[in-house]
């Protein structure tokens, strides 16, 4: 088709990446985070204290580790609601191992392997059996935590060795906790994987159009299976950190976290229908949720009111851009 118009050159981009970023969800969310930070520092005299702020990060670091993997999974058009139950099962397995004298390296290995195994179980049911992930993981949510309840009943495991609890309580430098360092390291890893690799590109392709991705030669089931494995693995990592921090395991550990993780992902701008979203968005969303919980905690707001506030924030932040565009188009008409 070179007969006509070879003189036409299509430009690579109409907008520079910077312009695009300026108008992005992440920028809006960052503004919200800054506003909450400023509000908090006026509302409570204890807010601007390095140790208090450092404590506040524990509100979100463990959840955010799962949220990174969950973000990829949701972008690919799937979801995993069993993540909190995987924590319970992995923590129970580690607790049982402590009773027969396992050391920190063995405990960590057990936590991660249980996480991977649970992820593989979900992955097989979704990708090989072809079942919808929301149904599968609601089922395994009950299944995994159910096993923890059978093993523990109303008992608790304790007696974790100090070199294990360090992973939940330790500080790398001054007020910088190990968990915070791990949070940033994982953010970097997941950000690079999603935004800078072929694998990440195929995640977006699958989320936008699984049929089209398959017809483009992408191994759709393999990519989805890996994402379930990753989510299970990150739940295992979170189980290690949380168990270490609490120093004990009860079957109700991390109860309700799956919804907080999904909230974090959606607040971070990941489309719940799949196909779009970013890791920087999830990182900022983690901070927003952490800051809100911490600020309200300093003001002695009870937990139930906090979850009301988080819910309103989620709806508000998601509705705002739509209301804005609607108002603008009305003004133009």
């Amino acid at each position, binding site marked *: 088709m*070179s007969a006509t118009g070879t003189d036409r050159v*299509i430009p690579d981009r109409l907008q520079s990446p910077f312009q695009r970023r300026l108008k992005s969800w992440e920028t809006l969310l960052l503004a919200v985070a800054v506003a909450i930070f400023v509000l908090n520092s006026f509302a409570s005299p204890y807010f601007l204290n390095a140790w208090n702020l450092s404590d506040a990060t524990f509100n979100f670091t463990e959840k955010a580790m799962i949220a990174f993997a969950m973000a990829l999974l949701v972008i690919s058009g799937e979801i995993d609601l069993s993540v909190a139950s995987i924590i319970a099962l992995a923590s129970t397995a580690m607790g049982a191992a402590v009773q027969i004298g396992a050391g920190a390296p063995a405990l960590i290995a057990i936590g991660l392997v249980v996480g991977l195994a649970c992820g593989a179980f979900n992955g097989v049911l979704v990708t090989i059996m072809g079942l919808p992930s929301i149904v599968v993981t609601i089922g395994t949510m009950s299944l995994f935590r159910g096993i923890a309840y059978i093993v523990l009943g109303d008992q608790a495991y304790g007696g974790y060795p100090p070199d294990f609890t360090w992973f939940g309580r330790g500080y790398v430098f001054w007020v910088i906790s190990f968990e915070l360092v791990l949070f940033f390291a994982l953010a970097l890893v997941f950000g690079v994987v999603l935004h*800078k690799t072929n694998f990440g590109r*195929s995640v977006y392709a699958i989320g*936008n159009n699984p049929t089209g991705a398959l*017809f*483009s030669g*992408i*191994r759709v089931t393999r990519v989805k299976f890996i994402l379930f494995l990753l989510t299970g693995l990150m739940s295992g990592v979170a189980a290690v950190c949380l168990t270490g921090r609490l120093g004990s395991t009860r079957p109700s550990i991390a109860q309700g976290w799956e919804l907080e993780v999904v909230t974090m992902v959606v607040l971070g701008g990941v489309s719940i229908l799949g196909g779009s979203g970013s890791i920087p968005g999830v990182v900022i969303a983690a901070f927003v949720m952490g800051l809100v919980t911490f600020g309200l905690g300093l003001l002695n707001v009870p937990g139930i009111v906090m979850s009301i506030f988080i819910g309103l924030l989620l709806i508000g932040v998601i509705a705002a851009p739509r209301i804005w565009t609607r108002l603008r188009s009305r003004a133009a008409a």
Partner: protein
Amino acid sequence: MTGGPRDDPAGRLPRPMPASVTGMQMHAKDMTAEPRGETAPGPVLALDGIVKTFPGVRALDGVHLALHPGEVTALVGENGAGKSTVVKILTGIYQPDGGEIRLDGSPVRFPTAQAASEAGITAIHQETVLFDDLTVAENIFVGHAPRGRFGLIDWRGLKARAREILDGIGARIDPDTRLRDLGIASKHLVAIARALSVEARVVIMDEPTAALSHKEIEELYELVEQLKRAGKAILFISHKFDEIFRIADRYTVFRDGAFIAEGRIDEVGHDDLVKMMVGRSVDAIFPARAADPGDTVLAVDGFCHPTEFDGISFTLRRGEILGFYGLVGAGRSEFMQALFGITAPSAGSVSIDGAPVRIASPADAVRHGIVYVPEDRGRQGAITALPIFQNVTLPSLARTSRRGFLRMAEEFALAREYTARLDLRAAALDAEVGTLSGGNQQKVVIAKWLATKPRVIILDEPTKGIDIGSKAAVHAFMAELAAQGLAVIMVSSEIPEVLGMSDRVIVMREGRMAAELHGGDLTPETLVRHAAGIEGAAA
């Protein structure tokens, strides 16, 4: 561009007077008053000076369109001429940036699809908007079901009326069938029944025959006649000239978002219309090629599937174009998708260059140099929400990346190279594929596969729903690819295309190879006879 209609100022100036007032129609060749126009009533619906812009593209630049009761107006133009945009404005999906829509002479606005529908405008789209999980009767009456006492839906009345309408159009479909269980042709009939159920005054048919077989098309023409007799104004969008000349009363030509001409169809010639559409004359529709096939690249042996096809065996050589002809439902696409690794055949083997290969997934097929341009562009061919360059590089990421890490500069370079080869029209390479016209989307899909440097390319209905200019370009490009040594398989239901392009043709009927034809055996008659299974096909 001398003496072409574009140079005629009459076509571009604002209409001097509404046709309803003067009873005159401006004609492409600037003819004077039209004698037959005098008795015709004024247009039901008229567009004047409609402007619509999208970022980087002026989709409509002050277009004019008039639809008259009891008449079929064919809207013709190449892909990207603005036809689909006009349909979306008429159905309330897009809002025009300027200009006027007049219904019975008075200005109206359609802020929502609901408003357009209430004004009696109904559309049968290329991809018809129906609900797969509802029954036929429910689909026909969705949104305006007959109500009984207490405002509840009168199910008995609904089914009876649905049956009445279906019988009226000669559709033998049970109103209780779920839409999911119907074929494309039957779905179209349901869409038409729906259009008849809403007391529509204006019926828009956007490529209604694209997915239909020959017999179904005949039935559709009969329906159009019925709609005409019922006094509906019909806007008919089609790329098929024979049908335009057969059923249209009037024509309107758009080119690059601008109004070019309008007039009565019996006063215009085939060639004139083509010239108005493309702004130049299309001389030879099919490129002349010297068939010089090389070594055998692909050999398929005994491909079977429990339900779709049976015993497919053939070989394909370098530089050869092998046509696959058959009726809709003959199993051609199903076989191609099995060859591409989408579905698993129950038996059969494939070899490339004489070496057997195992193709269990499209990824395997691509690795062995077999690529497939599917018929369903929007769902299977392109990922419309992703940018053009990412679509082009998707199967080639292994080449543009380093150790699994993306390299944007390489991606843009590859996308630029192949989109330029296909003469893609787009605002930017990072524009979403969904913003492009159908023909340009097809170019992106073809560019995507060429960038993988394939050995065998399978094109499934490559020019379906594409305008005549792009069609010729696709044909020329296919010939060029074959000349460069690529082995081409072309699935097509258009006889001129099959005859004009193929070196050899395999005719499929009911999942089996009915005939393999070449040379002097290739005539329209032999194709149709073998495809339909008419006795004496060998003659």
